[in-house]
């Protein structure tokens, strides 16, 4: 009897923990060159992406992941959303974009030592940063980035942290009592799966689009800066961050996270680009459509919009 009471008590405590404390969610986001509208100079002669010629944007599917995280935050009071990104100094833009949409804080992982990382080295560095953040219930990321299209970093992070992973998520239905219920979008149909928390979830582009930047949050956080940005900034608003700690974006170098140098950057990247070929598509891009009303409507809309019909 006594043990039963204790058990119930513990269970209530556990439930309370999830209700009261909310979820701690980390969203992995990447700043990518906008490859959706590329011009002639999109690639360099050596076959790598010419980042200077393309506008830097928030990777689209990472925005889908952010939206799912923010929805959980809306649903479970007391939840927090942290954006984690790795990249050059200007990738701090990604953290600010997250803050404008409702994220609570963010970390920029930036160091020359990370330069040239392939997916293996990237996921290693990110997993070390997550270990350093320590407490979390859920890690979310976009399915893949539009520059490399590998879809490897999310799953690799899960492996390195020894966490279960759910990929191709379209909607998080529930995340409570230590469990998560996720609707996955597969090639033919959907599948709803349950998994334990904490875990890693990668979100598909078919998930709800991300909410717009909110005017008040934008005005609140537009002066949020990393230390390097503040140091290179000569104008006003630098002192603001003393009174307003939320304006400091955490910036971590290789020294801030416990890493082993041999797994980092070019040294830690077994992937080598051997050859780049210019491929001209013979067949037009194809698309699988179902006979559902939604797909037909979507197709009609597209054809009308590009004036194929009419």
């Amino acid at each position: 009897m006594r043990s039963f009471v204790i058990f119930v008590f513990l269970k209530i405590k556990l439930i309370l923990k999830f209700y009261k404390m909310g979820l701690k969610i980390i969203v992995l986001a990447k700043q990518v060159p906008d490859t959706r509208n590329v011009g002639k100079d999109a690639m360099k002669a050596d076959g790598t992406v010419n980042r200077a010629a393309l506008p830097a944007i928030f990777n689209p599917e990472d925005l889908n992941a952010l939206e799912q995280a923010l929805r959980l935050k809306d649903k479970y009071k007391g939840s927090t959303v942290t954006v984690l990104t790795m990249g050059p100094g200007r990738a701090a833009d990604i953290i600010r974009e997250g803050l404008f949409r409702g994220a609570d804080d963010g970390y920029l992982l930036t160091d020359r030592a990370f330069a040239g990382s392939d997916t293996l080295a990237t996921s290693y560095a990110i997993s070390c940063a997550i270990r350093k953040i320590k407490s979390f219930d859920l890690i979310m990321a976009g399915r893949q980035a539009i520059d490399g299209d590998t879809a490897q970093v999310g799953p690799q992070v899960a492996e390195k942290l020894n966490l279960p992973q759910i990929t191709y998520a379209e909607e998080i239905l529930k995340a409570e009592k230590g469990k998560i219920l996720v609707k996955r979008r597969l090639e033919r149909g959907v599948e709803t799966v349950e998994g334990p928390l904490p875990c890693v979830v990668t979100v598909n582009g078919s998930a709800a689009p991300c909410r717009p930047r909110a005017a008040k949050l934008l005005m609140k956080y537009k002066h949020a800066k990393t230390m390097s940005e503040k140091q290179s900034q000569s104008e006003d608003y630098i002192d603001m961050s003393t009174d307003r700690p939320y304006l400091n974006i955490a910036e971590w170098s290789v020294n801030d996270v416990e890493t082993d140098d041999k797994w980092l950057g070019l040294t830690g990247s077994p992937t080598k680009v051997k050859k780049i070929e210019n491929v001209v598509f013979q067949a037009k891009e194809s698309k699988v459509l179902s006979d559902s009303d939604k797909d037909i409507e979507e197709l009609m809309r597209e054809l009308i919009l590009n004036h194929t019909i009419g």
Partner: protein
Amino acid sequence: MANFFTDNTDLLFHLQHPLMKKIVALKERDFEDKDKFDYAPMDFEDAMDSYEKVLEIVGEICGDIVAPNAESVDAEGPKIVNNEVIYAKGTQENLDALVKAGLMGITLPRKYEGLNFPIVPYIMAADIVSRADAGFVNIWGLQDCAETINEFASEDQKERFLPRISNGETAAMDLTEPDAGSDLQAVQLKATYNEKDGKWYLNGVKRFITNGDGHVSLVLARSEAGTTDGRGLSMFIYDRNHKKVTIRRIENKMGIKGSPTCELVFKDAPAELVGQTRMGLIKYVMALMNGARLGIGAQSVGISEAAYREALAYAEERKQFGKTIIEFPAVYELLATMKARLDASRTLLYETSRYVDIYKSYMHISEERQLTKEERADMKYYQRLADFFTPLLKGMTSEYCNQLAYDSLQIHGGSGFMKDYPIERIYRDARITTIYEGTTQLQVVAAIRGVTTGSYLDRIREFEAMAIKPELHGFRRTLIGMTEEYEKAVRQVMEVKDNEYLDFHARRLVEMAGHIIMGYLLLLDTERDDKFRTSTEIYVRMGRSENRARAEYIANCTIDDLGFFKPAQ
């Protein structure tokens, strides 16, 4: 993936007008909110940066969501389900996006959870939204009503209603009735005061009410039994949560089909009095209408922008006789003229908005402290300008937007007459702008006083005295010539001392003043940025010949000639 703010650099140009320094200082009261609200600006540059960044959000939502939805919204329209208005799916999506982005109480003070933006960036947002979907701006733009509540309601009412609007509730202004359209003095809807519970109750019918099922409605009603004119009317707030209004029907309109135009039946609907009784029409509705007319100016400019872009894109693509049609003089003249009218409309829109901004800020400051003598004089000066420029703006830009829509459709040829291109919808949407919030003919009735009192002329003289580069002096000489001709025409009409004769020529005189004023505004824009030179060149040239035609008509149409036009007795 379009951004309707950043893809149109003319907007940023108007946002960065030198007078903004004064406007921001007045609106922000020396930035007193900066330590009270985490989103308040620190200084002028910070405020301007915020306006620009927030307008980028508006531009993004309009480019990515509102514009792509416009066609389906036009086809689907709103409907009534269980006495509730259900918007078209696209309308609801648009609204949700703007609410999530926090763009509903743009001009409201921060203590009511608004953004405390001046009118200029708000009107710019309306300009952008109108380009994306002219019907949708009616629902979103009814946040104007909140401005009227902020001006005239009690503190308690402001605290209860304004945050609701800032957080996304919509509004409506219930003025028109079956027998009270242009003539609002004839409003019949009855407001009765119940001594027992100390509340007002509304009974009667309202017609043609845009967004009639909005959460918060401002209702014009007859509170003084037995009266028949405007002095017996008062203004009330009706809260939809009371559920005492029946939505009898939604009108099936020619254009702006996404915007629900409702017929409402009030049956013992509890309501709250705004301000004092008997001031409803003569004070509050006048203020409300002026705000709404500025809004129609923005809507007209946005529609003009959309019409021009559609025409340009089509003319650059369409080939006939072996070349693109834009290469033919008949087409490129139309396009260049459209652009000139568009630029002229937009510069008048922001000039008028700046006047409104300055005097309204003074008005709100005067509620907190006494204004100095200089401040009072400054307020009066800008209020007068706002009063005369608002009807001029509404009248001229709405007529121009119809002209632009007409010309744009013409450039599309037969394809424009089909449902396949957006211009067909834009053409229908444009048509209402010269009608609602007072027809062009009624704008002339308000604007003619700017002619007879010499107010337009005073402002024209001020424009004339402003410093411009030597190479622009030629334009000024032309405008001075046009001014002399205008003065002469005004004298000819005024000397007759007959009101009917003045009314007969009023529109001609107002338009003459309008051409000169817009010519000067374009000239001053060119002084700041040479990209407006072509439009100035075309507009001043066109204005000169149009004014000559009007002067000629006035000179050759005496009071005795009115008989030819009058209906047979």
